[in-house]
C-alpha cells in the first residue's frame, strides 16, 4: 500500500442501455481471471469488477465516465481488455 502505483484506465460507457446485467457479466468473466482485485468506479463509488451485483449497484448509464483500477500490475492486460469491451459498447447498440 505504501508505494501505491496508479494502475488505472478511464473510459466512458458507450452502449445505449448502459451497464446492465449482460455487460456486467462480460466484465466479471474477465475480472475473475485477475490475480488481485479489479475495481470499477464512477467517481463516487467503486465496485468489485468480479461481481455483477456490485457493478450493477453503481447503475452506470450511457455516457458515464468510469475508472478501472487494478491492484496488481500483472493484471493490466485484463484491465485493458475490460476497457476494450466497454469501448466496443459490449457489442450492443450504441444509439439511444
Amino acid at each position: 500500500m505504501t508505494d501505491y502505483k496508479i494502475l488505472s484506465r478511464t473510459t466512458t460507457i458507450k452502449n445505449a442501455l448502459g451497464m446492465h446485467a449482460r455487460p456486467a457479466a462480460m466484465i466479471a468473466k474477465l475480472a475473475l481471471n485477475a490475480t488481485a482485485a479489479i475495481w470499477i468506479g464512477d467517481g463516487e463509488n467503486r465496485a468489485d469488477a468480479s461481481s455483477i451485483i456490485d457493478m450493477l449497484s453503481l447503475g452506470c448509464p450511457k455516457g458515464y465516465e468510469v475508472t478501472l483500477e487494478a491492484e496488481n500490475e500483472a493484471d493490466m492486460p485484463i484491465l485493458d481488455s475490460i476497457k476494450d469491451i466497454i469501448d466496443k459498447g459490449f457489442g450492443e447498440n450504441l444509439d439511444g
Partner: protein
Amino acid sequence: MDDSESSQRVILGISGSPGICIGKAYVVEREGVDIIKRYFIPEDRIQPEINRFKSAVKKAKDEHAAIIESLNDDLSSQLNILETHMVLFKDKMLYGKTIETIEKEQVNAEWALKKVSLKVKTMFQKLDDPYLQSRVTDIVQVSEQVMRHLVGAQDIKIAEINKRVILVAHDLSPADASQIQLERIKGFVTDRGGRDSHTGIIAKSLAIPSVLGLGNVTQFVANDDIIVVDGSSGMIIINPDEDTLFKYEDRRARYEEYRAGLARESHLPAVTLDGKRLSLMANIELVEEVVSVRDNGADGIGLFRTEFLYLDLKRFPTEEELFEKYKELVELVTPRCVTIRTLDINGDKVLPYSDTIEEANPALGMRAVRFCLSRPEIFMTQIKAILRAAAFGNIKLLIPMISCVEEIIEVKKIIDDAVWALEEEEKIFNSDIPLGIMIEVPSAVIMAEELGHYVDFFSIGTNDLIQYSMAIDRRNRQVSHLNQPLNPAVIRLIRMIMDAAHRTGVKVVMCGEMAGDPVNLPVLMGLGLKELSMNPGSIPVVKQMIRKINSTDTKNLVDEILKMGKVADITDLVKTRYKDILPLGESDEHQ
C-alpha cells in the same frame, strides 16, 4: 357477472400470445423459499455447512449448464440471459457473502442465503433506473434455484409434464421456458411479466395462448382447476360455469376454424371483391425458410436478406460460396421470383471481422450500399454471384439505402464491371435481370422520379423510412411511440413514391413490416400498392383480408386520410371502417 351460484372467477391480465385454450391447470410452485427456518450452527459444523451450500450452488449450476446445452435454436435469444445467470451463481455479493454470513453469524445456509439475497434485492429496488430494477428478477431466479437445492425441494420438471395442461406459474424463467414441450402445454398464465419482459418474448416465440401479469393467480388456482385462457383479450376464467364454458368452447372452435381456414385458403390468389389481384411475397433470410414460403402461399420472395452468410462466417464469403447458396434458393423457388438484396450491413448488424470504423451513429453511417461502394471488391464478389445464380431462375437485384442518384450510377458501373469480369472468366451468367433500389431514405423519396430513370423497380423499406423520416432510433424505447406506420407524414411519403413511380413507369413493392400488418392494408391498397412482401406467417391473414376488400373503397379512404393531420384519427378511421374484416384479435370483439 352472475356469480350468485358459481365460483367462476375472471381475472384480467396482459395478452401474451393470442388464441384460446381450455384445460386443467398445472400449478408450478416455487414455495419453500419464503418459509426458511433459522438455526445456529455449532463452530465445528460451520465448514460442513459451507460445503453444503457450495454443493447446492454446484448442483444448480450443473442443472443450468445442462439447460443451456439443450437449448434449441428458436430459444437461442435467451442464451445471453442464461449465461449471465451462470456467472451470477458465483457472484461475490451472493456466493461470497452467503459463505461469510454462515461463518460470521453461525447460521444455516438457507437463512444466510435468504438474508443476502434479500439485501441485494432491496439495494436494487432503491436504484432509480427502472431497467436495473427489473434486473432484480435475475438475482431472485438464481438464488431461488440454489435455495431449491439447499432445502431439497423437488424441482418441478416442466420437461416431465406428461398430460395436456395449462401452466400456471409465478413467472417463467428462460430456463423454464426452454423446457416447455409444445405438444404437452396448451397455454400458460403467469403472475408476473409484461409485454416486453422475458416472459412476454417467450410467449411470442412459443406462440401458444397465454396471459401474463395476472398479479397473484397462482394463489387462486389449484391443480386440476379448469381454466379458460383467452390470450387474445388477455383474460382468464377460473372454474368457468357451464354457460361460459360453452361460450368459450364455441369461441375456441371458431378461432381454430379461422386459423385452419386461413391455412386452407392461403394458396388461392389474393383477389379483391372487385377483381383486383395483389401479389403477396415473403421476406426471408435463410434458404431453409423456403418451406414456410410455400406453406403460406407466397407468390415469390420479395426480399432475400443476404447478411446471414456474411455474419455466419468468420471472414467474407467467396464468390463460389455465395453463388452456391443463391443458386440453391433460386432453384427451389423457380418459377417464382427471388429478389436478392445486396449486403445491408453496419446498420444494426456488424461484421465482426471487418475493420469497423468507430461510428457514433451507425444508422447514419457507413451502412449498406455506402459500405459496399467503399469496398468495391466485396460488392463485386456478391454481384457476380447473383448474376451467375440468375442463369438458373428468376432473380431480381435489389440495392439497399440508396440516398442519391450518384450512388445508383456507381452501382451500375460495378455491375458492368462484374459482367465484364464474368465474360472474361467465361462463366455462365444472366445480366438481363430487373434492377431495383430500396426507397428507405427521405432523400430518395424526394428524388424518386430521377432515380426511377435508372432502375426497374422500387422497394419501399418502411422500417428505415419511418426511422429516418420521423427521426427515431428504432431500438430506443423512449421514442418507440413515434414508430407510426400510419403517421400522415409516412402516408404522404408513400404517395410521393407511388406518384413518381407512376410517372416513370417503375414498379413498386413494399417489403417493410408495415406491409404485413392487416390494419395498414386498406391504406396501402388505396395508395395503389399491388405488391407486398412480408414475413411468410403474415401472408394468410393479409390474403384473407384482401378478399373482403373493395379496392375502390380504399381509394376513397385514402382521399379522406390525406385530409387528416393526426395519426390517431387515421387509425380510428381505418379500424372503424374495416372492423368487420380485420382479423380476430385485431378488432376487439370482447369490448
